[in-house]
C-alpha cells in the first residue's frame, strides 16, 4: 500500500498555505511582542499590565465575554432540549431560526441591535407605548445592551453543539432512571446534564472565544466610550499608530484564545474518558 502513504502529500498545498499565511504571521506577532529592538523583553507586557486603564479594559472584556456566555447558555440549554424533542415543522422552525441568523452577517445584526437600542429607537417606542416608561431610557452604549446583542449573535453556536449531543443521547437512559424511581430533578442532574456536558463545554468555549475577540458588535453598540481589547487593538493600529501596544494586546487576545481551545479540549477529553 505505498500509494496510500503518498496520499498524505495531497495535504501539502493547504498545509503550506496555512503554515505561511496563518501560523507564521501569528508566531511572528507573538515573538515580536516579547522583543524590544531584537532583545527578549517583557517590558511591553509590564507597561500594559501596570496601566490602570488597560487593566480596566481587560477586565471589561473578560466580564462581558463571561456574562455573554452565561446568558447564551441559559437561553440555549432549554432551547436545545425543546429542539431535541421537536419534529416535523417545529424542528424546521428551530433549524431555520439557527441557520438563517448564522448566514446573516455580524455587521447586519449589530446594526439592527443599534437601531433597536437607540434612544428614539424601536425598544423605547414599544416601552413608551405600553406605558412602562414615560421618557426614553438610555440603552445604547450600556454594557447590558452589549451583552444582549452579543448573546443574540452567538446563540446558535451554543445551541447547536448542545442540540447535537442531546439528539444523539439514548432517550432510554433517563427513562431507565425513572423506572428505577429517580425523580425528574435527580434524573436531570445525574443523567441528562452529565451526558450533555461535552456539548455544553464545546458551546461555551466557542461563544467565550468569539465574545472575547468580538469587534464589530461593541463598536456599533457601545462605541468608543467603553473600549474592549479588540477595539483597543484596532485603535492602536489604525488611529494611534502605536503598533507596539497593538501587538501586545493582540498577543494577549491570542493567548486567551489558545488557552480556551486547549482548556476546552482537555475538559472534553476528561469528560469523554469518564463516560
Amino acid at each position, binding site marked *: 500500500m505505498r500509494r496510500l502513504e503518498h*496520499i498524505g502529500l495531497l495535504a501539502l*498545498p493547504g498545509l503550506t498555505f496555512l503554515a505561511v499565511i496563518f501560523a507564521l*504571521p501569528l508566531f511572528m*506577532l507573538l515573538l515580536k511582542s516579547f522583543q524590544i529592538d531584537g532583545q527578549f523583553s517583557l517590558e511591553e507586557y509590564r507597561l500594559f499590565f501596570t496601566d490602570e486603564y488597560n487593566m480596566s479594559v481587560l477586565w471589561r472584556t473578560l466580564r462581558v465575554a463571561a456574562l455573554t456566555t452565561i446568558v447564551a447558555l441559559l437561553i440555549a440549554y432549554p432551547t436545545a432540549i425543546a429542539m431535541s424533542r421537536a419534529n416535523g415543522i417545529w424542528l424546521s422552525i428551530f433549524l431555520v431560526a439557527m441557520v438563517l*441568523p448564522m*448566514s446573516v452577517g455580524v455587521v447586519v445584526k449589530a446594526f439592527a441591535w443599534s437601531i433597536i437600542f437607540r434612544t428614539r429607537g424601536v425598544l423605547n417606542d414599544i416601552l413608551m407605548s405600553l406605558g412602562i416608561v414615560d421618557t426614553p431610557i438610555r440603552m445604547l452604549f450600556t454594557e447590558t445592551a452589549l451583552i444582549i446583542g452579543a448573546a443574540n449573535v452567538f446563540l446558535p453556536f451554543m445551541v447547536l453543539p448542545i442540540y*447535537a449531543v442531546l439528539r444523539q443521547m439514548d432517550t432510554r437512559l433517563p427513562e431507565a432512571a425513572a423506572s428505577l424511581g429517580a425523580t425528574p430533578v435527580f434524573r436531570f442532574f445525574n443523567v441528562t446534564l452529565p451526558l450533555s456536558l461535552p456539548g455544553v463545554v464545546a458551546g461555551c468555549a466557542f461563544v467565550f472565544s468569539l465574545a472575547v475577540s468580538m469587534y464589530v458588535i461593541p463598536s456599533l453598540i457601545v462605541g468608543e466610550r467603553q473600549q474592549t481589547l479588540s477595539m483597543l487593538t484596532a485603535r492602536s493600529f489604525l488611529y494611534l499608530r502605536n503598533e507596539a501596544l497593538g501587538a501586545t494586546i493582540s498577543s494577549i487576545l491570542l493567548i486567551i484564545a489558545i488557552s480556551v*481551545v486547549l482548556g476546552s479540549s482537555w475538559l472534553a477529553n476528561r469528560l469523554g474518558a469518564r463516560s
Partner: protein
Amino acid sequence: MTGTDRLFLAISWAIGLCCVVFLMLPIVITVAASFTSSSVYTLPPPEWSLRWYRSLQERSGLWEAVTLSLNLAVVSTAISLVLGTLAAVAVARGRFRGREAIATFTVSPLMMPGLVVGVALLQFFREIGLRDAYWSLLLGHIVITLPFVMRTLLASMSAFDFSLVDAARTLGLSYPKAILKVLVPNLAPAYLTGGLFAFLASMDNYPISIFLTDARNKTLPIKMLQYLEEQPDPSLAAMSSGLILMAVIALVVGARTVGLNRMIQG
C-alpha cells in the same frame, strides 16, 4: 411522564420559542425598517416606501464595494475548495501519523480572533513587501474560508466509502479522474454547505479585512461601517436587507438540496 416532567418540558418549549423570536428579531427589524418613508428609524414606519432602496444608487463607492466583496468571496471559496479537497482526501485516506493534528490545524483559524489574524497578516505582508491590497485581501480571505470548507469536507469524507474510488480505478480511470468523477459528486452536499458558509463568512468579514484594505479597495462590510459613521440613514437598512435576501437564498438552496439538518452538521 410525571407532572414535573411535563412542567420541565413546557418551560423548555416556552424558552425555546422565545429564543426563536429573539434570534429572528434583528432580521425582521432590519427588513421592516428598510421600507420606511421617514429618514429616522421608527417602527412601524409612518408610511411604507421604496425610497431608501432607490437612494442606494446615489451612494458613492457602494457598487465597487459589492463587486470587490463578491469577487473575494467567490475566488477565495473556489481556492479553498481545491486546497480543502486535497487536504481532506489526505486526512481521510492516508495512513500516516499526525492526521488528527492536520485536521485540527486546518480548522483552527475558526477559533482564532479575527482581529489578531488581521494584525498578524498586516505586519507579515509588510515584512515580505506585499503591498497590493487585492492580493493581501485574497490571501486573508482564503484563511477565512478554508476552515469552513475543511470542517464539512472532513466530516463527510471520513464517512465516504473509498472503495468506490478503487472500483472506478479498476474500471480504468486515472486517480485524479476517479476522484473528480466519483468522490466529488458523492460529496456534493458537503461542497454545497461548506462552500455556502465559506462564501457568507468571506462576504461578512470585517476584522481581518480592515487591516488589509487601502483607500481604493474597500469591501462591503468596511464600506457599510463607514457609511454608518458618515450618514446613518435607513439606506443602510436597505443594504442590510439585500444581504439578508442573499442569506435567505443560500438557506433555501441549502435546505432544498441537502436539507436543513445536514446544513448544521459540519
